[in-house]
């Protein structure tokens, strides 16, 4: 085991800011991509639902 305690673990031998700064930003960026993908899927389904509804109404008025 490398670490005697949690505080040793967070300190990273004095490099805590650099190590955790790297891991935190990586995590934030990847989570942001996942959230963006979920929102994009919802957005696509929502906008296409409206698109088909509008197209359906258009066809009714034409007929």
């Amino acid at each position: 085991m490398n670490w005697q305690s949690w505080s040793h673990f967070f300190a990273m031998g004095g490099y805590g800011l650099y190590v955790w700064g790297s891991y935190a930003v990586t995590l934030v960026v990847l989570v942001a991509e996942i959230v963006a993908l979920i929102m994009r899927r919802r957005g696509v389904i929502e906008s296409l639902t409206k698109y088909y509804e509008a197209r359906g109404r258009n066809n009714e008025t034409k007929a």
Partner: protein
Amino acid sequence: MSKSKRSSLFYFSSPQTFYPLAGRMQPWFAGLAVLFCLVGLYIGFLVAPTDAQQGESYRIIFIHVPAAWMSMFIYLVMGFWCGVGLVFNTRLSSMWATSLAPTGAIFTFIALWTGALWGKPTWGTWWVWDARLTSELILLFLYIGFMALQAAIDDQRRADKAGAVLALVGVINIPIIYFSVQWWSTLHQGSSVSMKSAPTMAMTMFAGMIVMALGFWMYSIAAALSRVRCVILERERHTEWVMAEIGGQK
């Protein structure tokens, strides 16, 4: 569906048949990504020893090196699909290229960011304009340029073609990044891992890096599958099957 049609290589090259397949594969790759990353982090923080020269700061390489590998690898895959799209004019290949770019850009950013945070305590500087760092920055601009160019052209076919030409010209940058540390005298160190010889680092450190790389690889596939499904729905919205698919979502 006849058996011969199903076994054909081109069966899944149609967006309509690929869309449900992508949906079934995505959770498996996402699960593998989580698994590999957890194991990789376990090895990286709890098994791998402190580095004799760099102390604990070297633990940044467990994300830096895999992210840098993915940034180059995703670009090559994107370039491949751009080439296929240009030559065969297949819709799905262009959709793949479009879907890979954001994830590639994200890994390029992570490689640059973690590199800066590793460089400061190790080299004493966040950034230098050496060949390795500069060519990796150019890679980020290539990804951003590809996405911006595609977004700026309304006609989808022309957007795909213009993007493909840009991406293919940019492929030349990949060997430049990879071999930059051999071709020029750079501040960035040479590779500790090569195809030809045993890695010049402790086995546990090497294992942590490889497992994290597998995790990032699986993540990239999962993210690209999710994105390509959105792109398929958007671009194929004029078809009956997308209309039925959207109708089934309500």
